């Protein structure tokens, strides 16, 4: 019964989406307030209905209801509770339902929190969000229905892929989807602006919180996926330029460009048409990613379903939305007035360059990901495009981005002074050279290549150059310390967000360069009692034993890690065999020292009691992910900017009391 309620709620949500797609937009175009007024209620209703549906599926997993094909194929009654819950989205049908749930959640959030944006814009935005919701709800119901029953119901399920039985899976997809899908609301705002033909700086201010939220979650989602792959896969890699990774990285690149161009639009009323184009492009790339991952077009045995009917359905959605939005853009964009003039050397100019490079980087990833598919379709030639290609084409584009970043932070709006800014950055430049020399000396001059030293320099330049914004704006060493501190206190949040975001990128680059240049590995067959020495550590293999987990049996091996005669850590990597599927899995064991890690994985055992032991030394590797945390924090701080709250989530009560106090204190001009 609960299952049927969930199924029915999903169909009702589709009906609501259909209504929301048509009437609010009609109302917005024809200034019908009653029709426009329907939108928020419909958006919230659609969200509630989808919640009921998602709740019903979760209920089936929690109660191991194997009369559902979906639970039978992806669950097992022995599974720990957390994996029963995360198992809901550990498969194609469940995860696309989660996708839809987040999609309608964003619609509901706009309905609830954006009361102070113009009614026409809000109605048209929710209407456009309704189109996306309708398309994906239809897809779930027609081609990916998680509520299909089987009869007779089996007694036991076949279990969740052991690779996915990890805390990473519990949190990674929801976070990634919030980022991915969040851009749908940005897309809807852009479509609404085009339909209404009205686009101004205020629009950017209303949209920017939604860009920020999506961007923060996408950043965290990608970083988390990278760390998950790193510790779960067992060969120490953390980024593979895999099409599935690229699928989330492309919207991140254009989303980052969008974040910056929206600032220009908000402050200077410039780059309007470009910003709208980026908004459409970013969500189109999210859709492309969904298509690549879900359709099986990557000719792969992917974890999720490979079904040509599904692939065609998503391809149709993709083509309709990309084609439709581009048509709308080509038709309406010429009507939008361009404003805000600026000289090439200015804050705007720097942000335009940032956009140019990020878009180029995205194009390189896009071509590399899709070219093999297109070439094979048209000529039958099969080629491979992998990590070496992306490193060569993507890497160099990041060099000017890192070099120019600190300049962008200090240049003035409208017309900047390149020479003056260079002079102000001299100390930061000297600091980064000193830091580079120190790090090269520490790592060993003879083992450091010129390229590595250059990479260090870029990373330190990004870090010190970004941080220099604090020194520059507070006039440190130029005025008294007290006055500098007072100035720091008075900084707008945007100062901190650009400093943190940019320095965070520098930290990530430092981690990448150091790991790539100085990582080392040791692969040996070890017997109990064997000791080997690597990178100043003595590693002793003690013993192995088998033990039982909740739904697996594992062979655990114990190693003692010593440095200078002292035991610094005990490592216990293991190999698991899952009962439900019999699949073997390797569990790595990682010790963290400062920002560096030592990484253990075990392989085969041989007849003489030996075990293949793989030990990786990864200097400063954690900086890669720590940097992304700084970037996200920068995003969070930007979100706290009071100026953004015009259209951002603020509780109704708080807002009311605030406006009340403002009106009481200062007589505002009559509306």
């Amino acid at each position, binding site marked *: 019964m609960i299952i049927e309620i969930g199924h029915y709620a999903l169909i009702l949500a589709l009906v609501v989406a259909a209504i929301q797609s048509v009437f609010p937009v009609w109302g917005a175009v024809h200034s019908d307030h009653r029709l426009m007024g329907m939108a928020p209620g419909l958006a919230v209703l659609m969200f509630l209905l989808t919640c009921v549906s998602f709740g019903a599926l979760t209920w089936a997993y929690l109660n191991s209801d194997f009369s559902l094909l979906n639970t039978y194929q992806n669950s097992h009654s022995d599974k720990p509770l957390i994996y029963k819950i995360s198992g809901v989205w550990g498969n194609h049908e469940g995860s696309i339902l989660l996708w839809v749930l987040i999609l309608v959640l964003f619609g509901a959030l706009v309905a609830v929190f954006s009361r102070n944006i113009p009614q026409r814009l809000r109605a048209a935005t929710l209407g456009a969000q309704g189109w996306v919701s309708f398309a994906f709800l239809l897809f779930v119901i027609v081609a990916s229905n998680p509520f299909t029953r089987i009869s007779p119901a089996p007694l036991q399920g076949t279990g969740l*892929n052991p690779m996915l039985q990890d805390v990473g899976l519990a949190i990674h997809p929801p976070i990634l989807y919030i980022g991915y899908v969040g851009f749908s609301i940005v897309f809807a705002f852009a479509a609404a602006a085009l339909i209404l033909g009205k686009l101004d700086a205020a629009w950017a201010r209303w949209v920017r919180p939604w860009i920020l939220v999506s961007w923060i979650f996408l950043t965290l989602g990608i970083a988390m996926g990278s760390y998950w792959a790193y510790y779960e896969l067992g060969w120490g890699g953390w980024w593979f330029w895999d099409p599935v990774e690229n699928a989330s990285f492309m919207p991140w690149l254009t989303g980052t460009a969008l974040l910056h161009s929206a600032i220009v639009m908000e402050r200077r009323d410039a780059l309007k048409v470009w910003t709208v184009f980026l908004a459409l492009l970013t969500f189109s790339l999210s859709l492309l990613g969904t298509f690549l991952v879900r359709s099986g077009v990557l000719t792969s*045995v992917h974890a999720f379903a490979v079904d040509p009917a599904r692939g065609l359905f998503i391809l149709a959605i993709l083509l309709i939305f990309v084609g439709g939005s581009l048509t709308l853009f080509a038709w309406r964009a010429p009507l939008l007035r361009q404003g805000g003039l600026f000289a090439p050397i200015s804050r705007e100019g720097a942000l335009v360059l940032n956009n140019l490079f990020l878009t180029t980087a995205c*194009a*390189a990833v896009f071509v590399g990901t899709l070219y093999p598919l297109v070439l094979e379709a048209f000529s039958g030639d099969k*080629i491979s495009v992998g990590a*070496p290609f992306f490193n060569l084409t993507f890497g160099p584009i990041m060099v000017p981005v890192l070099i120019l970043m600190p300049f962008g932070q200090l240049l003035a709006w409208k017309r900047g002074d390149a020479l003056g800014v260079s002079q102000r950055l001299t100390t930061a430049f000297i600091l980064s050279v000193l830091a580079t020399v120190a790090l090269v000396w520490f790592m060993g001059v003879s083992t450091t290549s010129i390229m590595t030293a250059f990479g260090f320099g870029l990373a330190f330049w990004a870090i010190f150059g970004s941080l220099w914004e604090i020194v520059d704006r507070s006039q440190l060493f130029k005025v008294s310390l007290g006055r500098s501190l007072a100035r720091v206190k008075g900084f707008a949040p945007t100062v901190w967000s650009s400093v943190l975001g940019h320095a965070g990128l520098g930290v990530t680059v430092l981690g990448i360069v150091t790991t790539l240049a100085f990582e080392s590995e040791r692969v040996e067959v070890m017997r109990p009692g064997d000791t080997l020495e690597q990178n100043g550590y003595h590693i002793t293999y003690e013993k192995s034993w088998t033990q039982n987990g909740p739904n697996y049996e594992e062979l655990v091996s114990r190693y003692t890690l010593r440095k200078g005669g002292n035991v610094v850590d005990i490592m216990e990597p293991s190999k698991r065999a899952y009962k439900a599927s019999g699949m073997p899995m390797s569990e790595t064991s990682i010790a963290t020292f400062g920002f560096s890690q030592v990484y253990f994985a075990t392989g*085969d055992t041989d007849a003489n009691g030996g075990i293949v032991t793989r030990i990786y030394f990864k200097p400063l590797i954690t900086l890669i992910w720590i940097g992304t945390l700084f970037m996200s924090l920068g995003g969070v701080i930007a979100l706290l900017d009071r100026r953004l709250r015009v259209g951002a989530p603020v509780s109704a009560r708080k*807002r009311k009391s605030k406006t009340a106090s403002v009106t009481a204190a200062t007589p505002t001009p009559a*509306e």
Partner: protein
Amino acid sequence: MKMKFVLVVMSSIFLGTPAAFAVNPDEVLKDPVLEERAREISKEVRCVVCQNQSIDDSNAQLAKDLRLLVRERLVEGDSDAEVMDYLVARYGEFVLLKPRFALHTLFLWGGGPIVLLLGGFFLWRSSRKKKDAPLKSAAGIKPLSAEEKAALDKLMSSE
């Protein structure tokens, strides 16, 4: 990534190899210089039965065979380029993770630079246009109406 997880699992099931990792101790060459070259080459060679994995990363039997083949050729004195040519001759261009620059990969290698050049050209042109007619367009901008000004003041005075 998820795809990789599955591949590891799938390859270990379907290809009949135990869940081993990429390079195994028994494959490693005695000469560290040759071994280092072998590793660098391996990173650019695709395990042709896998999805987007180099033979250096893959645990498939075929990847192991290819790793041994690469080492064999190196021991016999082949240069890196000769090893690559040999692999391409046997397995086709599909084996290269970094396709060669040729007519059919023109847009692959040119895609990024084309976007950069087009974007740069567009920016250069629009900056010239702006320089030519700053006064004209400034004169064309209508001043804010009283209504718009009030709305703007409301926005700017925090909230």
